């Protein structure tokens, strides 16, 4: 199984094996996978896409399972919820943070003389479109 032997996540997450996920889908266990958190472990390194001698792309299978789990109203791991919320709030997965420098100064963009991080201009329209292209179901789940 070239995909699982190369897999970044498989080395550090015990029950994550791309070849097993593909085999489970083929055997009709998609529902079980969709209801399991393990599909969120993929590190998106795309090695499985490159290594598979049969040109199966386990990565695409995992992403399809994730999409389906969202479409069925399941809540993804917390960080994904936070990122999605932020996209619906400011158009980015997070807002500029304060970072502690080695001189113990708390700095963000303004202190460093960096220009403001731009947001989508017509934000309401942007948000409407984001919901339309797949965030609608998530909106009900995370209540934004």
């Amino acid at each position, binding site marked *: 199984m070239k995909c699982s032997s190369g897999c970044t996540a498989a080395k*550090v997450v015990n029950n994550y094996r791309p070849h097993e996920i593909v085999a489970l889908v083929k055997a009709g266990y998609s529902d079980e996978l969709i209801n399991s958190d393990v599909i969120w472990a993929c590190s998106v390194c795309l090695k499985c896409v*490159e290594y598979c001698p049969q040109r199966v792309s386990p990565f695409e299978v995992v992403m399809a399972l994730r999409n389906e789990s969202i479409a069925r109203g399941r809540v993804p791991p917390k960080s994904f919820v936070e990122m999605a919320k932020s996209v619906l709030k400011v158009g980015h997965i997070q807002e500029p943070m304060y970072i502690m420098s080695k001189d113990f100064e708390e700095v963000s963009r303004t202190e460093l003389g960096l220009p403001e991080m731009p947001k989508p201009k017509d934000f309401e329209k942007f948000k409407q479109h984001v919901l339309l292209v797949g965030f609608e179901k998530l909106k009900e789940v995370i209540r934004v």
Partner: protein
Amino acid sequence: MKFLLYLGCTTATKQYGYELSLRATLPLLGVELEHPKDMNCCGVPMKGISKFYPYYACARIMALAESQGLDIIAPCNGCHLNLTETIYKLKLNPLLMSAVNELLKEEGLKYTGKAMVYHPVEILHDKIGIEKITSSIKRKLPEIPVSSHPGCHLIRPTEFPRPETRDGPLKLDRLIEAIGLKARDYPEKYECCGAAILPYSPEAAIKTAAFRIKRALAVGSKAITSLCPYCIDMLDGKQDAAKTITGDQNISIPALYYTQLLGLALGLDEKELGMSLNMSPVEVLLEEVKV
């Protein structure tokens, strides 16, 4: 050469050292950077939420660049991959293209496929060129062994063009040698930093990064360098966490952006390059570089 600097979320919200060093070095080599007035996330971490969001998000970014008549510099590997994938997939799928444009029309935008996307490694290696870099630097840095970590999305997938390839020397390695340093291979060079495992399990992600750092130390590298905000966030920012999780107190190596090293060679001040924001012991490298 003028480009629209599309920073992406990670660089613009916490990896300020990358942005500072890009803004400090590229103009010295004849590249003008335009700051966008309207921007959104490229959608890479949201692929699992919605397959279609990244296409809309990326087409929107490129439509904005087209409206200004500019090409894009995307310093993040993830953004660069997603933008390239969108160009490629929309070209092959006119139906998807018109669906995306239908949405963009309501925002007064149109994506035609004209805007090009470049990663800083392409700008430095292909547009500026090694020769110009060698002739522009104020001083050659000493021959210290430095390992490059290009990051997954600079080389994968091979389905559409990527800035780097595994066949032959990396552009990033040539750039390292152009400023005097020595490019040192290490076994984890083409591996993943583990950043995208963070939302699922921070511990698993940090273990991944720890493994990379240990292997770089094992071949005698004095620093790790990359041009990906996710890689540096993991390899530079998570060293303390890696010590705690693995119990290995030897995990300590300067990890910094190539543009920071380039800045030093161009005679810039370490403060201008945001080097006080690196969490890893970059001061160790600075000492060696200064002599």
